[in-house]
C-alpha cells in the first residue's frame, strides 16, 4: 500500500501502535488484523448488523463504518476491555444463563450494545430494549432469550442498588 502510516489508538485503556497501515482501513480491520483483538466481528460491513459494535469515546459505533485513523485520541472499548477472561460482566453472565447465546457470532456486538443500553437507561421497558438492540441482528435465537438476559440484569442491578 502506498503511504504507510504510523499512528496509535487508545484501546481498552492501552495505547496501541498501528504500524505500516493503509489509512483507509476501518477500525474493525485494524482491531482484528493489526491489533489482534478478535472479539468484534464483521458480518455485513455496512453498519446493518451490529456485530462489530465497540464504543469510541463512550459512543456505541459500528467499527466497520469508522476509519481507524479518525479514532486517534479517543478511548476505544471492545468486548475484550469489559472484563478479564473468565470473569464475565453481569450482562455477559446473564447472556449465558438465559440461553441468549447460540452460534455466538452476534454476541460480542450485542454485549456491547446491552452495556450501552443499561448504562444510559437502567430501567428500560421491553419496547425500549427491543428498540435499542434493533441495530444488532441475531440469526439464531429469535431474540427471546436476549430480551430475557437484559431484563434479568436490569432487575439484578436495581435490586443490588436497593440493598
Amino acid at each position: 500500500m502506498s503511504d504507510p502510516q504510523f499512528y496509535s489508538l487508545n484501546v481498552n485503556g492501552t495505547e496501541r501502535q498501528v504500524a505500516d497501515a493503509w489509512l483507509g482501513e476501518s477500525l474493525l480491520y485494524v482491531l482484528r488484523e493489526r491489533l489482534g483483538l478478535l472479539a468484534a466481528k464483521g458480518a455485513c460491513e455496512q453498519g446493518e448488523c451490529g456485530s462489530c459494535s465497540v464504543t469510541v469515546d463512550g459512543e456505541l459505533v459500528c467499527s466497520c463504518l469508522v476509519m481507524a485513523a479518525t479514532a486517534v485520541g479517543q478511548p476505544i472499548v471492545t468486548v475484550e476491555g469489559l472484563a478479564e477472561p473468565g470473569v464475565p460482566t453481569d450482562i455477559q453472565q446473564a447472556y449465558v444463563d438465559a440461553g441468549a447465546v447460540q452460534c455466538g457470532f452476534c454476541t460480542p456486538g450485542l454485549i456491547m450494545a446491552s452495556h450501552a443500553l443499561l448504562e444510559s437507561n437502567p430501567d428500560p421497558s421491553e419496547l425500549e430494549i427491543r428498540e435499542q438492540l434493533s441495530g444488532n441482528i441475531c440469526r439464531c435465537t429469535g431474540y427471546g432469550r436476549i430480551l430475557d438476559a437484559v431484563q434479568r440484569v436490569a432487575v439484578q442491578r436495581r435490586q443490588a442498588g436497593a440493598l
Partner: protein
Amino acid sequence: MTQVTATDSTATTSGRVADRLGDSALRPDGIAKVQGTFAFSGDLSADGVLWGATLRSPHPYARIRSIDITGAWKIDGVTTVITAADVPGKATYGLINSDQPVFASSYVRYVGEAVAAVAADHPETCRRALAAIVVDYEVLDPLTDAEEAIVATAKIHPDGNVFRHQRIIRGDQQLVGEVVVEGTYEMGMQDQAFLGLEAALAMPDPGGAGVELYVATQWLHEDQTQIAACLDLPIDKVRLTLGGVGGAFGAREDISLQVHTCLLALHAGRPVKMAYSRAESFLGHVHRHPAKIWMRHHADRDGTLRRVEARFVLDGGAYASTSPAVLINAITHAQGPYKCENATVEGYAVRTNNLPCGAMRGFGVVQACFAHEGQMDRLAEACGLDPVEIRLKNAMETGDRLITGQPILNVAPVAECITRTAALPLPDEPVGGHDGDPLRLPGGSGLTADRGHIRRGIGWGVSIKNLMYSEGFDDYSTARCRLADGTVALKFATAEVGQGFTTLAPQIARSVLGVAAVVCEPIDTTVGSAGSTSASRQTWMSGGAVLGACNAVGDQLRAHQAEVWGVDVDQVVLEHGWLSATVRGEVRSVSVPDVSQGQMFEATFEHHHAPTEDLDENGQGNCHTAFAFVAHRAVVDVDVELGLVKVVQIATAQDVGRALNPLSVLGQIEGGVAQGVGLAVMEEIIQIDGIVRNASFTDYLLPTMLDMPEVVADLVEIPDPMSPLGAKGVGEPPCISSTPAVLAAIRDATGLDLRRVPVRPGDICL
C-alpha cells in the same frame, strides 16, 4: 405439560457441572462466546498467512472465450493466481450430482460463479489482483424461468435442465371430492443469512503432500471426500478441523470456499485464509428453492380430506447441490400432517441461470407446507369449518400412511399439537399496545401507520417434517467415549453450528455414567463421520452415537468391577455414577470416578437408523426415517392502507419427543420462528434476469428485535420409542408452519387472497 414462554426465566445460574438429560444445561462455550474469545473460523490465522479471494462471474450465462491472468501476476504482493487449469483432480464437486466446477472454464451459469482465485499479502491486494484478471465473455441469454427450463430445447448444461422429475401416484386417480379447492402458491428465494461469513484457513503440508483445513462447515467428512477428489489427494492427506461456526441453517452443507482455499495454500506453499464478504456470501452458498406449487384438494362435504393433486416446480438454479433430495422432501410432504389415501403429485427440480439452491432449514417441506396450509384454509372455508376444526378433523395419527405408502411409525401427536396451541393465550395487548406507543404499530419506527387503518388477524399452520436422511442413505454417526481418572472425554465429528450438541453430549455422558467432569475433544476428521448437522438429525443420530459409546463404557465398567468383586457381571448395577452389587451378602458400592483412577475405559459407537428405501416410479416406498410435528398460530396487525404488517405473536406446540435441554429447545423454537416470520413478510433474494439485486444486509431484510413477535411455546413431550433418547429433532419444524400461519393471519386481517411469500406491502395495499 412443559410450558415455556418468551419470558421464561427458569434457567438458573452457571456453575452447574452436573446437568443431566432433561436439565437446561448451559453452553460450555458460552463464556468464551460472550467474552469474544471463542475462535470462529474467520478469527483463525497463522504465521506467514496469505489472503485468498475469488473472481466471480458478473453474468448469469456466458461462454468464456479466454481468461488472461497476467495482469494479476504483475501486482506486488500477489503470490498465487489459479484457474480451472490448476485443479489437479476432479474438476467438479457437489453433494449429489457433482456438477459444479471448482472454477468455470467453458461456461459460467450464474452470477457469482467462481472463475479464478488469487492469494496475496492483503485483502486490498487481492481485490486489485482480481480486477486485473481479464475474462473475455460471450454473453448469452440466461434461462431464468423454472417452467421454461422444463420445456426449453436449449440445454444450459450437458446434464440437461431438469435435475429430477418424480411423481407420486396413490389410490383412486379418478376421485372427485364433493368439495374441491385449488390454488397456486409461490415462494421467493430465502437466504440462510448466518452471521458468521464463510471463512477458512488452509495449511499446506511440506512439499504439498497434504493439507490441513480449518473451516466452518456442517459436515466435515463430506467436505473431506469432495476436497480430496478435487485435489487428487488421498483422503487421509486432507485433514479437517471445525473452525468456530457462526450459524449454518443449510448454507454450509455444500462446498463453497473449501477447495479454493486448499488449492491456493498448496500452490503458494503457505497458509491461506479466505473470508467472504456479505455480498460474496449471498453468491457463494446455496439458498432455499423458490417454488411454484399448484394444489387441488378433494374432500367430503364434512371436510374429510380424500385426495390431493399437486404439481411442484422448484428452481434449483445453475447447479444441482441437493435439489433432487429437496424435491423428494417437498412432494412426499404434499398432504401435510393429514390423513389422505389418494394422491396425484408431480414434481420438478430444474436448472436455471439463477443462484444455485440447496439446503435450508426445512429442506423442501417449507415449500410444501406453505401450499398445503393455504389449501386447508380454503377447504375450511368451503366446508364451513374454522381453521382449527378442519385440521383436527384430518389430523394424522401413528399408523396412518404418507401418500408414498409409508406408515408413520413415530409418535404423531398432531391433534395434541393443535389443541395445545389453541389453548395458549392470545396476546392481551390491543392494536398498538396498552401504552399506545406508535413504535408498536406496523411499520414501527417509520411511524407511518394510522391506528384507524389497522386490522388484526389470526392464522394457522401445522406441519409434518421428516427427520434424518432419506432414500436409502445411511447417514450414520460415530462417537467415542473415553473414561480415565474420573473424567469423560467425548470425541465426535458432529459440527457444532450453534444448535448446542456440545451442550447435549456431556448431558448424555453424565446421565449414563454419572460423572460430572465431561469434556468434548476437538471436532475433526480423526474420528468417524457424524453425518451432517442438518435434517434435524444430530440429537437423534449423534446423540444415539454418544449414548451407545457411553453405554459401552458403562458395560466395561461393570465387567471390570464384577471381576474385582468376583461376581457375575449381571449382578453389577451402574446407577447415578455408582457401581454396586451384593457381594457375598454384603452390598458393595464404588463410584465411577474412583474405579477409573489410573484406568482407561474406551468405546467407539456408530449409530445407524433403520434403513430406508428408494421411491419407485409411482413415488411409492418407505423413503423417510422418522417424523416430527408442530402447530403454529400467528397473530398479526396489518395497516391495510400502507400494506405494513406487524407480527404480534406466534403460539406453538411442538412435538419434541423428550426435551433433553428445554432451554436449548426453546432457543431452537424461537430462532426457527424468526426465520419463518422473516420468510413470510420480508426475506427474499431478488433476481432480475439472473442478476442479484439485493446482496447486502441493507437490502435483504432480516427480522430485528423490533420485528420479532412474542413467542409462546408449549413442548409436547411424548418420548418416541424409535429414538435412542426418546427425543425428536427440533430445529426445522419451527420455521416450517410459522410462515403459512403468518400468511393466513394476514389473509384473515385483510380478506385478500394472498398466495405468495414474502408478502410485500404492494400485495396488500395496491
